[in-house]
C-alpha cells in the first residue's frame, strides 16, 4: 500500500495534457494500485486521475459505489478513456482532491457512454448516468489538464439554466446561456 502525494492547484503539472498508455505491464498495475490507495485515503473521494499524483498518463479510477442508492458499475479503472456519447445536462456541486477547501457548481452531461481499456488493455464500454457520469467527466477532465474550476457556473441562474438545459442537447458544458 502506497499513498502518493496529491498535487494541488496551482501546481502547473495539473494543467498538462496526459499521454495515452501504450504498455500494459506490471508497473502500470502497481501504479494503479497506488492510485487507488491514494483515492481511498482522501476524504470521501469518488475518483482520481493519474495526473493528480504527477503521472501524465491517461488513467483514472472512478468508484461511486460507496454512495447510497445510485446507479453505478462499482470500481472502474479506465485507461485511455474517451467519452463517445453525451446526453442531457445537469448542475451539480463538485470539489476536488487537488483543490482543497472549495466546492462549486459545475454543469455536466447527465448521461455518457465511455469507451476505455481496462488495466490489462482489454476494450470496454460503459453507459453511465448521474453521479457516476459526473465523476467520470471530472476525472477525464484532469487528463486534459482541466479542473472543475475551469467549468464553474454561478448559483444565481441555476433554476433557469436547468430548465433550459433539459431542452437543449449537444451543447458544450459551460458555453451555453441561451434563452429557452
Amino acid at each position, binding site marked *: 500500500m502506497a499513498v502518493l502525494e496529491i498535487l494541488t492547484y496551482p501546481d502547473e503539472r495539473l494543467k498538462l495534457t496526459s499521454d495515452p498508455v501504450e504498455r500494459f505491464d506490471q508497473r502500470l498495475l502497481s501504479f494503479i494500485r497506488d492510485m487507488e490507495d491514494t483515492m481511498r485515503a*482522501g*476524504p*470521501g*473521494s*469518488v*475518483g*482520481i486521475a493519474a495526473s493528480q499524483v504527477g503521472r501524465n498518463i491517461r488513467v483514472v479510477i*472512478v468508484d461511486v459505489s460507496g*454512495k447510497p442508492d445510485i446507479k453505478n458499475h462499482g470500481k472502474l479503472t479506465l485507461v485511455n478513456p474517451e467519452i463517445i456519447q453525451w446526453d442531457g445536462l445537469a448542475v*451539480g*456541486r*463538485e*470539489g*476536488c*482532491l487537488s483543490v482543497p*477547501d*472549495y*466546492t462549486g457548481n459545475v454543469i455536466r452531461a447527465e448521461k455518457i457512454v465511455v469507451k476505455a481499456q481496462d488495466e490489462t488493455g482489454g476494450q470496454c464500454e460503459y453507459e453511465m448516468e448521474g*453521479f457516476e457520469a*459526473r*465523476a467520470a467527466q*471530472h*476525472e477525464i477532465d484532469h487528463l486534459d489538464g482541466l479542473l472543475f474550476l475551469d467549468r464553474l457556473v454561478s*448559483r*444565481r441562474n*441555476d*433554476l433557469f439554466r436547468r430548465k433550459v438545459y433539459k431542452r437543449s442537447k449537444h451543447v458544450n458544458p459551460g458555453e451555453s446561456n441561451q434563452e429557452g
Partner: protein
Amino acid sequence: MLTLVGEDRPGIVAGVTQALFDGGCNLGETSMMRLGGVFTIMMMTQHDGTTQSLKNIVQPVAKRLCLRFHVDNIEGRLHDHVEPEVRISVFGADRAGIVAQATGALADAGFNILHLESDVAGSEDKPIYIMQIEGVAQKGVEAVRKALETVAKEGIETSIEPIDTLIG
C-alpha cells in the same frame, strides 16, 4: 467586514480593490452583486491598523465613486467553509411575506441557511418571486421537507434536493 453600496457604474470593484491593495489590505471571502440599480459589496478585509485607519483608506475612493460604506470589526476566519447539504427553491406569484413565511418554517425545522438569493422575475403586472436557498438541515431533511409542505399549501411552490458534493 467592509460593506459598500452605491449606484451601479463601471469601475466600482476595480477602484475599491485597488485602493485597498494600495493601503496594504488583504481580501478574503467577498460577495459583490448588483441588486436593483445598486451595486453592493461585502468583503472580509484584513487590515493591520485600526477601524479608523481602514476608513481613511476607503474614504477617498468611496467619495469618488459615490459609495456609502461601513466597517465592522470582526474576527473572521478563512477556511471556515460549511458545506451545504440541501438546496431549496421557493417560488410563486409575488406577494408580501413569502420570504418571512418560508424562512420562518425552515428555521423551525432546524434549517440553517448558508446562502440565499432571491429575485423578482416575470412581468411587471404578473411578478413572480424566486428564492434559492442552500444550507444545512440540522434536524434532518425530512423535517425540512415537511416544513416546506406547509408553506406550499399557501400558494408557494417549493422543491428540495440534497446537494451531493462530488470529490474527485
